[in-house]
C-alpha cells in the first residue's frame, strides 16, 4: 500500500469546505443526505447474499479475500510472543503452500507495533488501533498521544475510533475536528502519513441513517478508510451496514473524485460470508474497490476458513483443522 504525503485536498473536496466550516452547516448537510430505508437496505443485502460463486470465481475470490485480511488480535492478554506468531502467519498464512498470498496487514494495539514490525518488515502492513480504542473515552490529548506513539513505532495504518457519545449528542463538528486532528497526528517526520481508518462502531450508532452521516463526516475529515466496528460491540460488521457504507464511498467518489476504502470488522468468520461481502463490493461500489487498497476484512478466525476452502479447491478434499496453524 502506498503511503503518500498529504496533499492539498482534491478539487472535488474543496467544494465542501463551507459544509465543514461550522456546526450548523455540517448538521444541515448531514441531515440533508437521503435517508436509508432499513427494510430495503436489508433486503438488498440479503438478495446479494444469494449469489452463487463457484469454481474459478470462487478460487479467485478466496485468494483476494486472503489478501484483504487485516489479521487482528486485540486482547488484554496479547503478549509479544502471541503477536509475533500472528505476524508470521500473516506473512505465510499456509506454510504448506507457497502460492498462498500474504494478508494485507496485522492489526494490534499500539504498544505491540514494534513486535509485529520486527517479523513482517515491509512485506505486510502493520495497523494499530488508537484514540483510546475501543471506547474512545479519553481526552483529546491522550487520543493524539496514543496515535503519535503508534505512528512513531512504525505503524503503517491507524485504526481510530470516533467519539460515539459526541456523534449521538449531535456534536458533529467535534467528531469532525477529532478526525482531522488524528489525521494530522498520523503524519511522520518525513511528511508521509500513516493511513487513517475511522471506526464508527455501527452497533452503537444503530441506525443506517447515522451510518451514512458518520461515513460522510469521516470522509470529509480526511479518512482513508471507513470501518464498521471495533469487534468489541455486538452487532459488529453486518452485510447491510457494509452495503450502506459502500453506497456512500461510491457516491463520494462520484461527487469529489476521491476514492475511500471500506473495512467491515468483527463477526465475519467464514469464507462463505467473505465471498458475500466481495459480491457486494463488486455490485454496489464496483470492481475498483476489489483490491486490498480499497477493501479489507478485520478478522481473526476468518483466515483459517479461507485457507481450508482454498485447500479444498485445489485438492478436492477438506482437511481437518490440525492442518492449519492456530494463530
Amino acid at each position, binding site marked *: 500500500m502506498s503511503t503518500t504525503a498529504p496533499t492539498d485536498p482534491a478539487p472535488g473536496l474543496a467544494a465542501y469546505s463551507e459544509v465543514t466550516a461550522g456546526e450548523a452547516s455540517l448538521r444541515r448537510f448531514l441531515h440533508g443526505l437521503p*435517508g436509508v430505508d432499513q427494510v430495503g437496505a436489508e433486503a438488498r443485502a440479503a438478495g446479494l447474499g444469494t449469489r452463487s460463486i463457484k469454481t474459478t470465481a470462487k478460487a479467485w475470490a478466496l485468494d483476494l479475500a486472503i489478501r484483504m485480511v487485516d489479521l487482528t488480535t486485540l486482547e488484554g492478554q496479547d503478549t509479544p510472543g502471541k503477536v509475533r506468531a500472528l505476524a508470521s502467519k500473516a506473512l505465510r498464512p499456509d506454510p504448506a503452500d507457497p502460492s498462498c498470498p500474504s494478508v494485507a496487514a496485522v492489526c494490534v494495539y499500539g504498544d505491540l507495533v514494534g513486535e509485529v514490525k520486527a517479523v513482517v518488515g515491509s512485506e505486510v502492513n502493520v495497523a494499530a488501533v488508537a484514540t483510546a480504542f475501543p471506547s474512545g473515552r479519553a481526552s483529546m490529548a491522550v487520543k493524539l498521544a496514543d496515535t503519535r506513539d503508534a505512528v512513531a513505532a512504525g505503524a503503517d495504518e491507524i485504526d481510530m475510533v470516533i467519539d460515539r457519545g459526541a456523534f449521538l449528542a449531535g456534536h458533529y463538528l467535534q467528531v469532525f475536528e477529532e478526525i482531522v486532528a488524528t489525521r494530522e497526528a498520523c503524519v511522520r517526520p518525513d511528511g508521509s502519513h500513516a493511513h487513517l481508518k475511522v471506526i464508527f462502531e455501527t452497533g452503537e450508532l444503530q441506525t443506517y441513517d447515522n451510518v451514512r452521516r458518520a461515513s460522510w463526516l469521516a470522509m470529509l475529515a480526511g479518512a482513508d478508510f471507513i470501518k464498521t466496528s471495533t469487534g468489541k460491540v455486538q452487532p459488529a460488521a453486518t452485510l447491510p451496514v457494509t452495503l450502506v457504507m459502500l453506497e456512500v464511498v461510491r457516491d463520494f467518489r462520484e461527487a469529489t473524485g476521491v476514492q475511500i476504502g471500506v473495512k467491515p470488522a468483527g463477526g465475519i468468520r467464514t469464507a462463505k460470508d467473505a465471498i458475500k461481502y466481495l459480491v457486494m463490493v463488486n455490485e454496489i461500489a464496483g470492481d*475498483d474497490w476489489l*483490491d486490498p487498497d480499497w477493501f479489507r476484512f478485520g478478522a481473526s478466525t476468518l483466515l483459517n476458513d479461507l485457507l481450508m476452502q482454498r485447500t479444498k479447491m485445489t485438492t478436492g478434499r477438506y482437511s481437518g483443522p490440525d492442518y492449519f496453524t492456530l494463530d
Partner: protein
Amino acid sequence: MAKKSTPFEYAPAPESRSIVDIKPSYGLFVDGEFVDGRGSSFKTVNPATEETLAEIAEASEADVDLAVRAARRAFRGWSRMSGRERAKYLFRIARIIQERGRELAVLESIDNGKPIKESRDVDVPVVAAHFFYYAGWADKLEHAGLGPDPQPLGVAGQVIPWNFPLLMLAWKVAPALACGNTVVLKPAETTPLTALLFAEICQQADLPPGVVNIVTGAGGTGQAVVSHPDVDKVAFTGSTAVGKAIARAIAGSDKKATLELGGKAANIVFDDAAIDQAVEGIVGGIFFNQGHVCCAGSRLLVQESVADELLAKLKRRMGTLRVGDPLDKNTDIGAINSREQLDRIRELSDIGEAEGAERWAPPCDLPASGFWFPPTIFTGVTQAHRIAREEVFGPVLSVLTFRTPAEAVEKANNTPYGLSAGVWTEKGSRILHMASQLRAGVVWANTFNKFDPASPFGGYKESGYGREGGRQGLAAYLKGADA
C-alpha cells in the same frame, strides 16, 4: 489513484435440471386420472432455448364437458365434507409443494423462462404459503364475516396466465377448495407443465377424484371452460381484452366472476425518498419476472428535482443486472416467455422510439437462441406516448417526471388501469395521503411487488374486479358473499 483490478467474473452456477422428469407427452387431468384428450395437441417450448419440452393435449369442448361433469360429481362429497377434513388435504398439498419445491422451481423456470432465483425464492414459497393460508380458513368460514353458514358456489372454471403459472394456480385453487368448491382449471398454453405436476401432487395427496381437474389448451379451451353451462363461477387472470370477452360471454348467466386484468402502475418517487432503496424498488418493480407482471411498476414518476440523480443511479444499477440462462442461480433476468410476447415488446418499444422517447439499455450479451429482451428504460416520456398508456408486459420502463404531489396523483390516476402503485418518500403523512388519492387496488409504500396470502389483491377500472387473497378472497367462492 483508483487502481483497476481484474473483474469479478461469476462462473456459471446452473441449477441441475436432472431433478425434473419431463415426459414426452401429457394428457389431461380429469376425475383424478391422466387421460388422453380427444382434440389435437400442441407443443410447449423452453423459451430460453426454443427446445420443445413436451407434447400437450389440447382439450376439446367434449373434454372440457367431461372435466366439468367430474367436478360436478366430486362437488357433492367435497362440499359436504367438514372444513376440518378439507383443510387436511390442503395442508397436505402445501407440504408436498414444499417438499417438491426444487422440482417445481426448476420446471417453472424451464417452461416459463423466469430465473431460478425467483421461482425458488418467490414463486414456490408463496404458492405453499397460499395453500397453508387457505387451509387454515377451511374450518373457520363461518367466522370470516361472510354470513353464519356460508355455502360454496359449485364448480369453478379458472383460466390462468403464463407469467406466474404455479402462483396463479395457487391463488385460484386454494381458496376455491377451502370454501368447498371443485375446479376445472386451464393453464396458459405456453406454460402447462407445472400445473400438470400439480395434478400429480393432487394424486399424491389422495385428493378425491374430480375435485381438481386440469384441462390444457389455448383460447378455445378457455372459452369452453368459462362458457360451460354447468360452471357456477369464473375466475380469470390475464389480459384486459380477454377479460372483456369473458365478461360478455357470461353476461346474462348466473355465473359469478372475478377478473384480474392488466395494469400500468405508477411508481412515484418523491425528492425526499431513500434514493438507493427507491432505485432497488424501481428495478424490482419493472424487471422482476422480465416485467411479465400485471402489477409491474411500468411507469416511473419521479420528482423533477431528483430526476437526474435518480436516473444516473438507476442506469448504474441496471448495468449490474445479469440477463441469461434462467437456470443459472446468478441470473436476474431470464427469457421472455414466447416469441409472440417478444414481438409485442419489440413493437411497443419501437413505437416509443418513433414517438420521440429516448431509449436506453445497458450493454448486455443476449444468448443467440431463445427469446430475449434487455432491461430497457425510456426517458422523456409523456402521458401522450403509447408506452406510457399501454401495458408492455416486458422489461421496459417509461420515465415521466412531476413537480408537485398533486401532479403526481393526477398523472398516476390518468390511465384506464388501476391495479397497483408505489410511493417512495421518507415522509409518513405523504404516504397516507397518496394512498388515499391513488385509484389502485394495491399501493405499496417504500417497497414494491410484495405478496402475502393474507393480503387481498385486485384492481380498479380496467384492471378487473373482485379480490384474491386474504379473507376477502373467500368471498369470491361463497354464495351471497359479494367480493
